[in-house]
């Protein structure tokens, strides 16, 4: 993981897309097998009863991936300030998700050098989650 600096970031910079494969096992392990969660995360039939086409991918697994995606891009001296997402469509386990992102703003805010990114997960080319992430980057000088 390399460090990114505030001065070097430009609006419209794009992050390299990455692919994730959510599975029912991954969803269960994320929350812990002994912890109660939505049965639809592990059970395709329960997902179908909810109106989803199979086991539901937890939103919190996707937001965790988005958080990691931006943190990896920003580097170890960066500090994640916040993330806000809208889950537009449910995702179904075993269907790959592509994470993509782009810089939409950079600003100084209360002495911090903030870069804002738009991040999305794409399933079959269509966005299923859209979000904005704010990250504080160090300056070179």
């Amino acid at each position, binding site marked *: *993981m390399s460090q990114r600096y505030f001065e070097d970031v430009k609006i419209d910079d794009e992050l390299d897309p990455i692919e994730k494969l959510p599975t029912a096992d991954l969803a269960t392990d994320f929350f812990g097998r002994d*912890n109660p969660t939505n049965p639809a995360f592990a059970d395709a039939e329960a997902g179908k009863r*909810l109106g989803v086409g199979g086991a539901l991918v937890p939103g*919190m697994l996707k937001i965790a991936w988005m958080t*990691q995606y931006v943190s990896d891009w920003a580097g170890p001296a960066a500090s994640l300030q916040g993330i806000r*997402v809208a889950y537009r469509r449910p995702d179904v386990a075993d269907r790959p998700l592509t994470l993509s992102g782009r810089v939409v703003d950079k600003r100084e805010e209360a002495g911090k050098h903030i870069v804002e990114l738009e991040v999305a997960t794409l399933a079959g080319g269509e966005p299923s989650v859209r979000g904005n992430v704010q990250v504080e980057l160090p300056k070179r000088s």
Partner: protein
Amino acid sequence: MSPAATPDMLRLRGDSVSEELQSLITDAHRATIGVKSEPVTVTIREEDARRMRDVIGDKDARYADGTGIAPPYVIAAFGGRPNRMAPFVLPNGLLTQQEWKFTRPFRMGEKLQAVSQVFDIRERLGGRYGHSVLLTTSTDYYDGDGNHVAAALTTITQFDPKRAQEKSE
């Protein structure tokens, strides 16, 4: 140009609209907005942080064993718990919006005070879930000195799967 509506058509439309517009949200539901919960103690557990980190494949050295720092998404460990104050108007719910804010990194083993409230409750007609209720709750996390550490805002869309299915047919 569409044909003019007859009185019968108008009555039918009127009945259908009034049925659809009948609010599912009561004064008792609205009264929960802004009422803060008693603080609940939550712990940033190393086992949660390590498990989540490993499941998502996070290799960030800041969150490696022994650093004492937990990744921000460990906040998800508290997100699955039902908010006792939150009204459940319809039988099913899906997470539709979420926000996390971080004032500082989480430290392994630290105990935080979580204070929750219903932030907003409103309803929506039409769309994928038919007549649905959007419930937004917020939780703020404070450390032992009363300093703010993080906040989470969550919107659950509550719906009746039977109604949603009927709408889509």
